[in-house]
């Protein structure tokens, strides 16, 4: 039985980061994520780590990439406006295949929007916020327990697949407190050290596997990383064959491992004829709706992605074939519903309910909507 | 009159920018088909200005008695 603790989402993320081995944080104040920075400003110096508040989010993103290249685990945390500023350097981390973790505590958008209210309006920005083709991993907790556990999982995935990972939470889950149980032992994954000597080391050599090891600075491996298209040596190359091979490997290292990465919660779906598709704080509401409707005799369940990206297409299709109707519920004006329609639309009816006014959508509204749609056909 | 200095020009790296020729106080060098060429090595006084003025590491001046093991291009790899 691990230690029990009443703690907020933001503080849970900060403490879990330390537990995961994070020893560098660079960030910039922004509601509703600042508490992550504040807590790490206290903790990191106690763990021989470094906390720095940079001059803006762009700088924060640059700093954590630099820190990660020295072999250390590095974190930044922000919200919508800051997340938008970080996109270019996040793209650099994708191109350079540099493991970092970025917490995006979603608030109402767009623009300054609703700083102290939740939203789920960055879902597609997380996936496509950068120019160019890329894959990204994004985890979506719906509780403080998951905020703790998914932070560790985010670092593990970043190290394992040599990629940035987004921990996508929101104002509700980051600010509220819940009692959590701090797991006794947790699996900590560290990046692989190169098995070849420096003179044979190439930072982007995919010949032995989709994820080439990233040598830490200061260990005799002097290599080059650039945002330019590059070859296995890391030096610039615009040779079409090389460009295609490198980009395909960077995409495939996530696509081909999606079965290990993607995770969903399947709630009361075994005998369900209907299902709600919801994530994050809205999944908490949807779970209540599911229980209430079950009591009214409606065989409904909830499919909740724990990993928003890569998208849970296979898991969704598997259920879509057996379901009469899927209801997508999200705090925006229609974002993830596009992906659900894309995969499930071939097999079943997909409906959407949502809005973005900074308030969680109450269970009653969702129940009425679902019952009305069920009775229609 | 034996040359006191050996001047070596790396024709692959020289881009014919003419700076070494402009600055050589003894007109030891000349530009020929867009490359620096040593025309009167005997006049070289070993001031190394040409080395300092070359943007492309393309010229090296060494004293004759200096047995400098000029590293081949590969020795310096990693």
């Amino acid at each position: 039985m691990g230690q029990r603790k009443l703690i907020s989402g933001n503080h849970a993320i900060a403490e879990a980061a330390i537990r995961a081995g994070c020893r560098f944080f660079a960030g910039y104040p922004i509601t509703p994520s600042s508490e992550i920075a504040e807590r790490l400003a206290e903790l990191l110096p106690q763990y021989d780590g470094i906390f720095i508040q940079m001059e803006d989010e762009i700088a924060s993103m640059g700093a954590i990439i630099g820190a990660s290249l020295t072999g250390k685990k590095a974190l930044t945390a922000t919200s919508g406006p800051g997340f938008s500023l970080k996109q270019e350097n996040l793209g650099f981390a994708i191109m350079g295949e540099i493991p970092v973790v970025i917490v995006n505590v979603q608030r109402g958008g767009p623009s300054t929007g609703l700083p102290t209210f939740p939203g789920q309006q960055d879902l597609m920005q997380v996936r496509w916020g950068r120019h160019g083709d890329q894959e990204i991993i994004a985890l979506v907790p719906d509780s403080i327990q998951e905020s703790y556990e998914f932070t560790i999982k985010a670092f593990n995935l970043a190290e394992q697949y040599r990629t940035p990972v987004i921990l996508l939470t929101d104002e509700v889950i980051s600010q509220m407190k819940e009692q959590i149980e701090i797991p006794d032992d947790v699996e900590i994954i560290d990046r692989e050290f190169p098995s070849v000597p420096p003179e044979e080391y190439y930072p982007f050599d995919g010949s032995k596997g989709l994820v080439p090891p990233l040598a830490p600075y200061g260990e005799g491996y002097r290599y080059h990383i650039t945002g330019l298209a590059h070859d296995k040596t890391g030096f610039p190359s615009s040779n079409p064959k090389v460009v295609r091979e490198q980009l395909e490997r960077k995409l495939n290292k996530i696509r081909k491992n999606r079965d290990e990465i993607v995770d969903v919660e399947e709630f009361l779906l075994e005998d369900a004829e209907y299902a709600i598709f919801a994530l994050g704080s809205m999944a908490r509401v949807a779970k209540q709706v599911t229980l209430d409707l079950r009591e009214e005799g409606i065989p409904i369940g909830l499919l909740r992605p724990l990993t928003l990206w890569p998208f849970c297409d296979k898991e969704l299709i598997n259920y879509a074939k057996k379901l009469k109707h899927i209801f997508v519920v999200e705090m925006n004006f229609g974002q993830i519903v596009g992906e659900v329609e894309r995969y499930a639309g071939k097999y079943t009816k997909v409906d959407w309910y949502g809005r973005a006014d900074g308030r969680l959508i109450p269970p009653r509204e969702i129940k009425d909507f679902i019952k009305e749609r069920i009775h229609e056909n | 009159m034996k040359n006191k200095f050996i001047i070596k020009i790396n024709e692959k790296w020289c881009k014919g920018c003419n700076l070494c020729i402009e600055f050589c106080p003894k007109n030891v060098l000349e530009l020929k088909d867009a490359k620096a060429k040593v025309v009167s090595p005997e006049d070289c006084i070993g001031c190394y200005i040409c080395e300092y003025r070359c943007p492309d590491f393309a010229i090296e001046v060494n004293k004759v008695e200096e047995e400098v093991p000029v590293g081949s291009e590969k020795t310096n790899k990693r």
Partner: protein
Amino acid sequence: MKTELAKKYLRLEKLPTLWCSGCGHGLILSSLLRALYLLNIEKDKVAMVSGIGCSGRTPGYVDVHTLHTTHGRAIPFATGIKLMKPEFYVLAVMGDGDCAAIGGNHFIHAARRNIDITAIVYNNGIYGMTGGQVSPTTPYGAYASTAPYGQLEEPFDIVELALGAGATFVARSSIDEIPKLDRLIADGIKHKGFSVIDVITICPITFGRRNKLGEDPMMNLRWVQDITVPMKKAKDMSKEELKGKWITGIFRDEDKPNLIDLYLELNKKLKHSMVDESSKEGVEDVRRQDET
């Protein structure tokens, strides 16, 4: 003998450089490499970070840890490296636009923080890579592809900017002051704190061609000689005479506590009995000493 010194730190197989014939960047690179040679710094202890532009291609030629980042962001990337590798010599090489336009915010904050990074600015007053657009250090009245009628703005004085922001080593030199520049860069690297070296250099193919200097490097170099004035000489020149001139020399060389040392001291003081990774209890709620 001088080229031989620089070759020690070169990635020979990457030469010749991609810079145009007569570009000044190669002169700054060779000076930089001789500075490393002078200090006899171990390659494995050096990180060289650059932004985007012709200057951005510098690290590719240098056999140290090299990182070619995004436009204007070399310094933040370098900051992350320095904070995690205090024993490293971290160099940020930037163009004038890279450093003082898009990168301006990072430049002044690094100076304010006094983080131990050496910033070398390849200041040719133009955006060369993209074809000769006007930059924050393009002289008033000079022509550029985006200032076809002459630049109407006054340029930044990168030295004043660095001094005002608190950098503790600030100097300016030019590609005409080699080998003096070698020593200056070595001093900057050795200095523990944020060092700025503004190096006036040339871009014959864009700046030169549009400003009656042509593509001849010698003409462009004479222009550098005209617009730079050694500090000693500048002392007895009037403000009028100094208009449009860049003063060279060391403007500040001051030892002040630098950021990473302060961090390391703090960490030592707070040395927490390391909670080993798989420890049972979570992270104690350690309040600051003054709190009850």
